[in-house]
């Protein structure tokens, strides 16, 4: 391809790659509900771009505006301000039945008076797809969700998991530009939920449709997503890949919402262009890669599984603090320690019970231990970012 272009137009500067149009983009979208004299701002000012073929999750605690955001994409809520685009086209004031997206409702919302096959065929019939093709596509879709034998049943005769898959099939069969799923697995029990997570991911890969997935379950979002928008109070607190969000939470809110984080309060004692030194409450000094202001009070964060625990004094080049084991919980494959530092701060440490871990002398509560980690694993968390300061990477302060 490039070779041909080069041969035809040897002089021209290489043509810029055609900008791919995002499947969905929200530009300054907000939603305020008015009930009587009170107003509730469900969604602040959202700017989101969701690429075609992406598995994109909206993750956040209950009431943070995830459903409202999704309903604005589907067309069930009118945005108070801003523009909603599907494939670059402004659909802000287009009715839901004229938007090329489909939704999977948390309550499934299957039509109880129609058979499974008629439920799945509903969208195709509205588009006046020829009957023979409808039949074929419905059959193929029921095959995909492994419900081929249940076509003639009514939704009331199916289990929760099966109903969930009918809801998925009913939306997917229309081959929408994007599929919107609002906590689709929340009503299922744990085992089934985990199986369905993998199943959904498989189906998404097979059909290649953009998925926008709403969940309040951080594990689910980390497992399935290509990218995650962590939402809080109607705003995006952080946007990134699961690894970025887990490894480098942009704010205290994200650090605490996703996984377990240790927060160590301290004061910056020394700062240069190479990094800074933070003196913790317990008296230990930590080297931090970021450039900070001397004298500033900060929170240093480090994930529990990044920390090594041992009795031998660690290499002074690593980040290290001494402490006392306060509690140890043996979980089979891992042991979770709670270690108390000199100033009373408690640090949680997860250690895999790998083959190098022998019968534990340090496990006993009360025994003195050293905690250490690679300096890159700890960094300073900015304060909770507000509405205007919600971009990823805001922790890199100038």
């Amino acid at each position, binding site marked *: 391809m490039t070779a041909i272009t080069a041969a035809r137009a040897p002089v021209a500067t290489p043509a810029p790659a055609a900008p791919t149009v995002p499947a969905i983009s929200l530009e300054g979208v907000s939603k305020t509900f008015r009930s009587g004299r009170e107003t509730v701002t469900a969604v602040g000012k959202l700017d989101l771009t969701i690429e075609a073929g992406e598995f994109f999750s909206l993750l956040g605690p209950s009431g943070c505006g995830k459903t409202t955001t999704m309903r604005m994409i*589907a*067309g*069930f809520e009118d945005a108070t301000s801003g523009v909603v685009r599907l494939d670059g086209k402004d659909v802000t004031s287009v*009715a*839901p*039945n*004229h938007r090329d997206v*489909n*939704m999977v*409702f948390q*309550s*499934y*919302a*299957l*039509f*109880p*008076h129609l058979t499974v096959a008629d439920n799945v065929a*509903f*969208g195709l019939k*509205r*588009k006046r797809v020829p009957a023979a093709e409808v039949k074929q596509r419905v059959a193929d879709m029921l095959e995909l969700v492994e419900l081929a034998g249940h076509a003639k049943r*009514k*939704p*009331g*005769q199916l289990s929760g998991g099966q*109903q969930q898959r009918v809801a998925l099939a*009913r*939306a997917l069969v*229309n081959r929408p530009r994007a599929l919107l799923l609002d906590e689709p697995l929340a009503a299922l029990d744990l085992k089934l939920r985990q199986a369905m997570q993998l199943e959904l991911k498989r189906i998404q890969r097979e059909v290649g449709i953009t998925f926008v997935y709403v969940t309040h379950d951080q594990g689910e979002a980390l497992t399935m997503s290509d990218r995650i928008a962590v939402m809080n109070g109607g705003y995006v607190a952080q946007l990134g890949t699961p690894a970025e969000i887990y490894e480098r939470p942009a704010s205290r809110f994200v650090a605490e919402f996703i996984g377990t984080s240790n927060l160590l309060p301290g004061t910056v004692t020394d700062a240069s262009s190479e990094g800074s030194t933070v003196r913790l409450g317990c008296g230990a000094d930590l080297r931090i890669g970021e450039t900070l202001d001397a004298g500033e009070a900060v929170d240093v964060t480090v994930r529990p599984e990044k920390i090594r625990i041992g009795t031998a004094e660690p290499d002074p080049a690593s980040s290290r603090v001494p402490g006392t084991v306060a509690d140890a919980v043996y979980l089979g494959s891992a042991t979770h320690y709670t270690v108390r530092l000199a100033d009373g701060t408690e640090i949680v440490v997860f250690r895999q019970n790998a083959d190098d871990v022998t019968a534990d002398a340090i496990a006993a509560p009360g025994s003195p231990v050293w905690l250490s980690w690679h300096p890159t694993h700890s960094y300073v968390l900015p304060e909770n970012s507000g509405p205007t300061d919600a971009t990823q990477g805001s922790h890199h302060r100038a």
Partner: protein
Amino acid sequence: MSVIVEGAVTGTPAPPRPRRRIDWGKLFTWTVLGWLFVPIVFMIAFSFNDISGRHNVTWQGFTVKWYGQAFDHADLTQALFHSLAIALLTMVIAGTIGSLLGLALGRHTFRGKGTTNLVMFAAICAPEVVLGAALLSLFLLMGVTTGFVAILLAHVMFTVSFVAITVRARVITLDPKLEEAARDLGAGPWTTFRLVTFPMLLPAIMAGGLLAFALSIDDYIITSFVAGEVTTFPLWIWGATRVGIPPQVNVMGTLIFAAGVLLAVINVILARRQASRGRP
């Protein structure tokens, strides 16, 4: 408890003598059922009474001849025809208006909703005598001649609230997400109503319509005010009581009752089938 165990261990049969208790619940149920059904049983029985005189009040023997002569009284047949026509039209008109009203009241908030609810409730609570008298003066004032149309207007007026309340109760329990799902799948507002809302409401609409039919066909009080020269089935019977009610009345009553039971049973079966199949 321990007594029984002891008895079992020592082998002495402890004869369990349950005291004969009166099951009040059962007694109550049967009393109420009897109360409801004995008059109907009498009505049916006396449609088979082989009377010779004018009065159908004492049992004189079994016959089915009245069924053969059911339509021998031309004016009674005419009255029955009026009643059936009015009841059917009431069912259709009040069924339609009441369903739409119930849908609006159950689904939407609008200016005057509270007033509408109040008026509906008032229409149900108001004594029929008062309603009838008021309707008569209203019709006279508006120049509506008493008769068939006046009866129909009056019946629609007092049955529409019952339909609306029946349908509203169903609408309230309807999941609005179902309609959203239909919209999401490309159905416009009308298609959504036709394919989703209406089928889900159908049992309630049918129940409301049947209720309107039943209320209309046996209404006496309101009808008597606005009927003018027109005679309906209840009006005819009332007029006939002074000279003796012919057994044909019992025959027609029995037939209407049988038809009513049949319709009610069909409605229940349909509703139950839908419920058992259709719970999401």
